[in-house]
């Protein structure tokens, strides 16, 4: 924004305004950097604490750097099968992401471009399901999984998440922003609906596809309530959040902090890396969803 470059009606700005602008900028930086520290420091302390031996943590849980670095916490996590949990989390998240991108874009395309009977009503119904709070589904999904024999299975972890109403909504909105002329040309050449979707439209929606990929992956990777009701006895099927909650145990239990924080870091790290590489898309995606919603 270039407000200040054109002082109103050619008057030079009074000194007090200039001073106030300076002060305001300094104050702003103080607040912003202070908060950035408040957001980063807890993670930093958690990382370094995960490398401390237990007695050191008990003696002083505030000190940043360990006196003695150790992999004890991580070793304990490996002993608990954390590699298996990591694999489960990744496998489930990849399946769910693929499902979302394909199914939501197919449905979104049809809802935005293919005139078929019942389209409007269908779209409204899908919007309506976005209003259903997740917690309401907790027990009824358990009943369903029980009836379908999906308790303690990968199918139970994956299939319900393969598509979301939000994903369909996002894709539909995006398809509508693409000029229809592009498709008409292909249409004249006798391409089928699927060919148009696959060859013409989908490549144009790369930003939306990336945003949806990120939302789906993140949603699945961090999901706790879903796996909590699907997995009842088979610990080999734990995802990372489920494994972490199991590790925490009951209230009042003596906690092995280095292992718990090591587990938390192993859960955080993959998402953090994806975030650092694709930040722009995270921000664009959430902004886009915000502006459209």
């Amino acid at each position, binding site marked *: 924004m270039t407000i200040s470059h054109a002082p109103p009606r050619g008057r030079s700005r009074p000194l007090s305004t200039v001073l106030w602008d300076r002060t305001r900028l300094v104050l702003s930086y103080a607040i912003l950097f202070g908060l950035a520290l408040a957001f980063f420091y807890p*993670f930093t302390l958690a990382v370094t604490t995960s490398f401390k031996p237990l007695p050191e943590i008990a003696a002083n849980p505030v000190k940043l750097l360990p006196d003695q670095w150790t992999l004890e916490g991580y070793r304990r996590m490996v002993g608990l099968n954390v590699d298996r949990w990591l694999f489960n989390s990744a496998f489930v998240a990849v399946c769910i992401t693929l499902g979302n991108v394909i199914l939501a874009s197919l*449905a979104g395309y*049809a809802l935005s471009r293919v*005139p078929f009977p019942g389209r409007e009503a*269908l779209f409204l119904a899908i919007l309506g399901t976005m209003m259903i*709070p997740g917690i309401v589904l907790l027990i009824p999904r358990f009943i369903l999984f029980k009836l379908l024999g999906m308790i303690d299975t990968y199918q139970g972890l994956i299939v319900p998440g393969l598509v979301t109403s939000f994903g369909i909504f996002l894709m539909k909105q995006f398809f509508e922003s693409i000029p229809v002329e592009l498709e008409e040309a292909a249409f004249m050449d006798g391409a089928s609906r699927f060919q148009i979707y696959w060859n013409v439209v989908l490549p144009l929606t790369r930003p939306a596809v990336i945003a949806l990929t990120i939302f789906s992956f993140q949603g699945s990777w961090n999901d706790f309530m879903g796996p909590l009701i699907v997995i009842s006895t088979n610990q080999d099927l734990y995802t990372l959040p489920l494994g972490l909650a199991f590790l925490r145990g009951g209230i009042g239990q003596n906690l092995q902090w280095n292992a718990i924080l090591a587990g938390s870091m192993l859960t955080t790290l993959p998402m953090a890396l994806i975030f650092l590489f694709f930040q722009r898309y995270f921000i664009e995606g959430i902004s886009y969803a915000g502006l459209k919603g």
Partner: protein
Amino acid sequence: MATTGIRGQARQDAIAGWLFVAPALAILGIFLVVPILFAAYYSFTDWNGISPPTEARLIGLRNYYDLLLSGGIKQQDFFKALKNTTYFALGVVPLQTGAALVLAVIVNQRGLRFKDFFRTAYYFPSITSSIAISLIFLFLYQKSGLVNYVLEVITFGRWEPIAWLADARGLFHILLEPLGITLRTGPEFLRAKVAGLTLWDWISGPSVALTAIMLQNSWTTTGTMMVIFLAALQDIPSFVYEAAQIDGANNWQIFWKITLPLLRPTLFFVITLGLIGTYQVFDQIYVMTSGGPAKTTLTMAYIVYRNGFRNSEMGLGLATAVLLFAIIFLLTMLQRRITEAREG
């Protein structure tokens, strides 16, 4: 396939359209719509979660009666959870919305550098697993942990460390105590019972433990809200501000008279997201407190789970869920009413 004019195309489109939506529709139907029907039906049964669902017996309105009117422990817990969740939402939604808005306005200032860095830093907690964050804060909220330490430092040692997550005292009770008002010394009407809880209980405010989780929750979500506000702010064309400045408006006036009204749809969106989220707070409670101490962190979402899975009363849990659904629905509608009335 040979196309025969407009009519053939319409038929082809009808087939293609339904084929394209069919897979998504099947999944949404089975895992979203069917469960809602189950929820409605099973909330009238005594299913325990262990026997086959088909053996559940219909018991009429029993579960709803137990939750709303019975006068027993189930009713008490329901209203405790409703009270706690409401305090939670009343604290978190204004805090995270206000903080996010202020931050977005600060970051959006002209001439400010490191914008991308701040945006990244604030958004980071939003991408992290709620379980991992809860465990990190469980560590920070210990009596000898970082939170007490920082408070001690900034008050020059005057802060007495507390065990945050084990402290059941209500914030308003703590504030009333120096005024000489406690359950024993306060006026008689405070001991009157409303919906299973004493009036004194209703006005407790969030407990220290719940407050700790509220602060943690705001810490996690403020970044997302800020990014949404920032996008909306950047959508406001700069000539709007320029015009206001030529007319002699100061920054304060510009914010209240121009920025805020233009942000109203975004504000509505952020508050709705906040309400829906806070009324369902679950993960943090599950990992950090399991509803304790003294049931002061019992939330609506948590008793849905506890009634259903821990206490093996799925019917009761479902009735709780249905009531929670109704509450969230009413709140969203009410909020829409208020926003529209202001605009009208």
